[in-house]
């Protein structure tokens, strides 16, 4: 039976999950199979690779459709889901390419399944058209991009953060998007779950922007065992179509700019302008709800390191070394004293970093840019170092917000992650030694 969305009211179309649960409790309805099979949620410790953690988290977050095409360094996600998806009662398809993968998951989400795909640089480029389509049709999908070195085929087995702008501005036209950047295996797990929730809440594609280091690293993490009790988000930012077709109603889906009923308005400048504003503002007006940063030792810091993704890890190590927080590589005190006597204060300070008051601002949601949080966290510093594994892209965004500070880009290309020593030396270079 085909519903005409114009004739039926919203309430008539909605499936009422609450009534169903009430009936189950009253005993007038037999619980559905999937509810009976649910295992209680508990937690356990495992050693997992970043990619495996992402795949496990997707199944836990309720993803029941995966379409993908294997590409290093994201292949392990596809490999693991090819068996796990079936066990969870979902569907797995190895598509002909990444264009097909991205389109398939959009269709799967319209059909009612939470859906995801995973890829790396070259595949992510192919997906751009579909990402724009998902944005304009407000389809909640999750795309994992485990970054490798580019451009083109680039460096299949080495890491980079070169797709940071493509993740935000990759598809043509103006749209808002959410991008999360994990820096550890635990975050890869947690952020995947978060990505699904944010996608549903804001009805937008969400990108999990990992990199080779995080994707291939193994760490001990805590995972959920059992099944998740998936609730519909309380507040949803659906703007159109007005009928919630993810709950069973038929509707028009339209790639051209459309009104609340899905009717084309591309030829009407005023209405089109409103539509574009709406799909952008559902993200930009709610940055406070989405944005997430973590700060370390920022209370009394003179200089800050702003980092995201795997680079945040050596940056944290640099902060700990400067602050003298227990670590086996910190110079023993007697050596510092000996150096002070032998070489004098100035020379010693060039190799000992303990006088540097450094803090770290780790950005978890790279897009939308967490302007207010960053401004607040970096209020009292005068130097900001932005290490990143590209030619220095994200630092422009930092520069825009912290325009009155000394923002120093610290690009590194070639596939190797920054070492803590390099970061410390850069700070020393900027902060200088008092004459």
């Amino acid at each position, binding site marked *: 039976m085909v519903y005409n969305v114009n004739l039926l009211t919203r309430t008539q179309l909605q499936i009422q999950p609450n009534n169903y649960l009430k009936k189950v409790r009253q005993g007038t309805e037999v619980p559905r199979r999937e509810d009976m099979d649910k295992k209680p949620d508990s937690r356990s410790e495992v050693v997992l690779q970043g990619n495996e953690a992402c795949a496990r988290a997707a199944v836990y977050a309720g993803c029941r459709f995966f379409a993908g095409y294997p590409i290093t360094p994201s292949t392990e996600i596809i490999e693991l889901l090819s068996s796990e998806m079936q066990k969870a009662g979902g569907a797995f398809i190895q598509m002909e390419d990444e264009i097909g993968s991205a389109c398939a998951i959009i269709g799967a989400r319209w059909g009612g399944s939470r859906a995801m795909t995973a890829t790396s640089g070259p595949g992510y480029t192919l997906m751009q058209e579909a990402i724009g389509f998902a944005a304009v049709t407000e389809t909640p999908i999750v795309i994992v991009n485990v970054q490798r070195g580019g451009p083109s085929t680039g460096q299949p*087995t*080495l890491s980079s953060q070169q797709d940071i702008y493509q993740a935000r501005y990759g598809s043509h036209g103006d749209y808002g998007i959410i991008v999360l950047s994990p820096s550890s295996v635990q975050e890869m797990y947690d952020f995947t779950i978060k990505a699904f929730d944010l996608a549903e809440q804001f009805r937008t594609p969400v990108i999990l922007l990992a990199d080779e280091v995080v994707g291939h690293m*193994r760490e001990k993490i805590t995972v959920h065992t059992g099944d998740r009790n998936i609730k519909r988000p309380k507040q949803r930012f659906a703007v159109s179509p007005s009928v919630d077709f993810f709950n069973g109603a038929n509707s028009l889906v339209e790639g051209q700019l459309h009104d609340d009923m899905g009717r084309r308005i591309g030829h009407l400048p005023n209405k089109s302008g409103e539509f574009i504003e709406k799909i952008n503002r559902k993200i930009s007006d709610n940055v406070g709800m989405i944005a997430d940063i973590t700060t370390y030792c920022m209370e009394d810091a003179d200089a800050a390191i702003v980092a995201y993704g795997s680079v945040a*890890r*050596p940056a944290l190590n640099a902060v*700990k070394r400067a602050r003298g927080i227990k*670590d*086996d590589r910190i110079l023993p005190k007697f050596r510092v004293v000996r150096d002070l006597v032998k070489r004098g204060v100035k020379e010693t300070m060039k190799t000992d970093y303990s006088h540097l008051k450094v803090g770290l601002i780790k950005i978890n949601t790279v897009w939308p840019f967490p302007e207010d949080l960053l401004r607040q966290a970096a209020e009292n510093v005068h130097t900001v170092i932005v290490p990143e594994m590209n030619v220095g892209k994200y630092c422009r965004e930092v520069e825009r917000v912290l325009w009155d500070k000394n923002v120093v880009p610290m690009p590194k290309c070639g596939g190797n992650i920054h070492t803590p020593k390099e970061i410390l030396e850069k700070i020393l270079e900027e902060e200088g030694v008092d004459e």
Partner: protein
Amino acid sequence: MRINIRFAGAGGQGVILASVLLAKGYGLGENYNIAQTQSYGPEARGGACKAEVVVSDEEIDYMKVDTADVFIALNQVGYDKYADEVSKDGLVLINSTLVETDNPDHYRIPATEIAEEMGKPFVINIVTLGALTRLLPKVHAPAIEAEIQKNFAASIAGPNLDAFEKGYAYMSQLLIERKETQPAMRLVKKSA
């Protein structure tokens, strides 16, 4: 305590697998924090391959190894490339069948020879891992053996466990000859 361990060898020798088993042994068996990373070329076999394990009782921030405390070389190319990046009192274990060097401080295990004697040349990584387990502090053989059993199908877990024991026994004998008990304990003392 933080121990930086680096494995180097050729793709196909099982360099990464050995590091993963060691990391799991430390992480799950002995309840330490671990971070295991690797780097390799696009080739399936034959390219240079490196794997790193960081073991710590604190949360690990920097997950890579700059200067290794423990260095394991499975072939000559890997040894030549990373032999200089070992800390002064670091511990070096070499596959003496394939690596030639005259440093008397290095621990040697003829892993390829032992594996070929067993008729299973693919277990050289596990033979080396057995020898390494004897040398390293804070990890016990049962923890690694449990991970070997979990990691392999039943049909090949047997040969791998044999290989592990052979490596372990060989190194125990060598340590008796060298009159040492737990050579790597200095790594723990240094960082305590």
